[in-house]
């Protein structure tokens, strides 16, 4: 029982260390664990982005904060971990979300050559990007996300620290988010 309860709660609280769109004291803080090579993760991210747009228009920019953490499933998605590293390398250069969106938009093309191409298209410092990727400097952060997440599969979503267990349908998800804050 205890274990079940633990799994339904976010184990590491949202912090400034996270990649976020919005403010930490927002009415609703969404923490998503995702895998760049997983189509459901991409769909869920797209859904959440649409919800965020709509709710921000209705309740203001500070209503919803979106946080993304890595959960590459390397056994089934051979490019997912490298893609996460590319996102982290872009983060160092202040372009996490642009790289993040690019990776989800091109999840059929995540081989290493494409990762460099995306970094180049975003105008990143390529020698720096290559150094970080080849030395795997971001692997620890990604592994921390995986190990501390308390989840076994991606995507996983926590709404104000509580695991969302409903279906991945936009109306159902939006209802759950609005219900949390009212």
């Amino acid at each position, binding site marked *: 029982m205890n274990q079940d309860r633990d799994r339904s709660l976010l184990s590491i609280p949202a912090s400034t260390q996270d990649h976020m769109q919005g403010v930490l004291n927002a009415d609703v803080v969404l923490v998503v664990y995702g895998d760049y090579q997983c189509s459901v993760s991409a769909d869920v991210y797209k859904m959440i982005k649409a919800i965020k747009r709509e709710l921000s228009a209705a309740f203001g920019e500070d209503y919803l904060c979106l946080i993304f953490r890595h959960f590459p499933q390397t056994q089934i998605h051979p490019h997912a971990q490298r893609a996460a590293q590319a996102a982290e390398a872009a983060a160092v250069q202040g372009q996490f979300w642009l790289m993040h969106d690019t990776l989800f938009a091109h999840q059929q093309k995540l081989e290493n050559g494409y990762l460099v191409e995306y970094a180049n298209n975003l105008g990143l410092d*390529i020698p720096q990007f290559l150094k970080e990727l080849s030395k795997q400097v971001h692997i620890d952060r990604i592994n921390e996300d995986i190990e501390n997440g308390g989840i076994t599969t991606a995507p996983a979503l926590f709404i104000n620290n509580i695991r969302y267990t409903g279906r991945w349908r936009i109306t159902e998800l939006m209802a759950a988010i609005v219900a949390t804050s009212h």
Partner: protein
Amino acid sequence: MTSQSTMIRVLIADDHSIVRQGLTTIINRDPEMTVIAQAEDGQQAIDCFREHQPDVTLMDLRMPQVSGVEAISAICAEFKPARIIVLTTYDGDEDIYRGLRAGAQGYLLKDTKSNELLNAIRTVACGQQYIPPDVGAKLVQRLNNPELRERELEVLGLMARGMSNSDIATALSISENTVKTHVNRILSKLGVSDRTQAVIVAVKRGIVSL
């Protein structure tokens, strides 16, 4: 009923257990085939080959310790009639070229459908080659590309690690001018105008890895 002696005995070498399990299930479902051993890396593949002498080996390319290409070369040097199919996620023309040059008779990508995989195993087991048309086209492309020299490959490998010309000069104990000459030749051979594009093309083609 197929008797044990006419069954095609298959060895699978892949560092991902989930891939090995999936392949085993697909292959064992075919009444004419059976998976006799699995290896997690290139060295184990060589050892398993020696022990079991399978009819057909499915070999991943990027594996820890001993790579797929090295394992194929070692096995083919020792066992002339070895029948090996490369099964990989990498479709760069250099990967294809190196795999086949090492002695593989077939080259499949991991998104291949099960019936095509089984066909490929049957074809290679009969002593024929199995090269899908898109793989063949890339091989032709590779054969038409100018060959990079060993030193150029070294320089390119360091470029892919984000090193500047002066870093590369220090790492290889050569002058920066010599590095520049190598870089210019690399750009020209790869048909690109800058080092970033050189790295992108080289990584995509499998000439260097990140």
